[in-house]
């Protein structure tokens, strides 16, 4: 991960949902290796759409999204799988298979490296199994190796989600409100885990949050989104607390947009 990977470039990206709702509008954004970008904005401002577009869980209507120079919006088949592999995702609802063991959930992050059926029969390489154990140890959950995911607390599940993401050996981590469902203490643990990946492994991290406090504390750069457009973009050194009031007050005046999030899902 020393080779300065994890550069993302969005060029004139727009997304209109089939029902006419505008998800993103002319978004231009360049994020470089090792940045810790927090995206703030009201519900329905397009944060989630933006994040999901980057690894193409959502298709965009217009524009290009380059991950280390490769355009994911036009990739298909194997190429698409490979690009997705390099941008791991962490979800608000953890998205673990609750009836599977922690080990199997973590291991499933590795499938992008296997041909279609080999991984299906659990034929994982020994070094990958060791990697799973190492990643679990990193999030302090090695003792939960055989435990079923549903028997873990929310914070533990999210950390399994992080371990799973690490199995992809990603250069970018996309985190969609990863701490929304967690208490302050667990939030800190999860955020510190992410911070470590950013600082020690040089992973680019893009994270959606609602919490201004978190954004100020962890981000290296803050991007504000409103009605699918970027209305704010500054490195943390230049960020003034009053700016947030601007972002939210402007958006808050327009109540119609607050209901858009339902359309995103």
């Amino acid at each position, binding site marked *: 991960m020393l080779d300065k990977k994890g550069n993302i470039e969005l060029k004139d990206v727009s997304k209109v949902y089939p029902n006419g709702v505008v998800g993103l509008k002319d978004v231009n954004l360049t994020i470089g290796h090792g940045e810790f970008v927090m995206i703030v904005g009201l519900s329905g401002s397009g944060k989630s759409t933006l994040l999901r577009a980057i*690894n193409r*869980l959502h298709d965009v209507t217009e524009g290009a999204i380059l991950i280390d120079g490769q355009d994911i919006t036009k990739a298909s088949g194997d190429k*698409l*799988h*490979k*690009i*997705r*592999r390099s*941008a*791991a*995702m962490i*979800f608000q*609802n*953890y*998205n*673990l*298979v*609750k*009836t*599977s063991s922690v080990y*199997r959930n973590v291991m*499933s*992050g590795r*499938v*992008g490296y*296997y041909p*279609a*059926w080999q*991984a*299906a029969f659990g034929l994982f390489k020994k070094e990958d199994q060791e990697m799973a154990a190492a990643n679990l140890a990193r999030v302090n959950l090695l003792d939960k190796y055989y435990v079923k995911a549903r028997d873990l607390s929310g914070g533990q599940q999210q950390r399994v*989600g992080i371990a*799973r*993401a690490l*199995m*992809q050996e990603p250069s970018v981590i*996309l985190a969609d409100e990863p701490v929304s469902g967690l208490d302050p203490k667990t939030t800190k643990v999860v955020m510190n885990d992410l911070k470590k990946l950013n600082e020690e492994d040089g992973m680019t991290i893009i994270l959606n949050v609602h919490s201004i406090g978190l954004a100020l504390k962890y981000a290296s750069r803050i991007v504000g989104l409103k009605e699918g457009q970027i209305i704010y973009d500054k490195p943390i050194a230049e960020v003034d607390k009053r700016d947030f009031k601007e972002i939210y007050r402007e958006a808050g005046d327009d109540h119609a947009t607050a209901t858009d999030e339902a359309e995103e899902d």
Partner: protein
Amino acid sequence: MNKSIPKRPFMKEWHVTGFTVFLLLFIAVVLSAQATQVGQDFSMEQFADLWIKMANPDWSYLPRVLTPLAQTVQMAIVGTLIGGIAAIPFAFLAASNIVRNAFVRGIIRFVMNLIRSIPQMLLAALFVAVVGIGTLSGVLALAVFSFGMMFKLLYEAIETVDQGPIEAMRAAGGKRSQVIVFAVIPQVLNQYLSFFLYTLEINVRASAVLGYLGAGGIGLYLNTTLDTFRYDQTSVVILAILVVIVLVDALSNKLREALS
């Protein structure tokens, strides 16, 4: 605060709709009974005779029904297994979160609905006509029935799985087969086993009477003993079936509880 309860409208006050429906149903029952001549002659003596004979089971007959009884259960197991396994690929192809092509799903569901609309007994009669008298036709009838039933239960289970893990697997660069194996199958596996046991329960019951149509199993003995007026033996057959069904149900319930 002197508020009187609002008066109900006339129709509701006297339950006009309810009474009319009841009256119509009553007339319909009487008319259909007359048309189908349900009230045929009934010999109390014969009925009493049957009861008395059945109340004294001929236990010496028991050893002879054990083999066909086992055969009945075996038929149910084999039939359920064949149908249950055959249903898996079709269930995946019919699930909207696996196959995006609505046309493919529509065709499969349509054909499966046709298959499921054929009653079990009719299937058995058909197979007896096609492959002849014997257990094979029974097994085939049960297999086709299980196929239709397991298909429906399974594809509905697949459609209602948590979409989150599917999204996660796609985001990780998983191919469709990997998404299915890692995100879908673990979520439906227990349900599938539970459906399997449930279908097996139904099939054991059905299999007990299949012999009546010549499709193998204990039903044949039910038929013969009734035809020869050996009601004392009939009651042994019925009791034996009863015991097996209760046992299978109990076992299946226990296992299904353990699964959930």
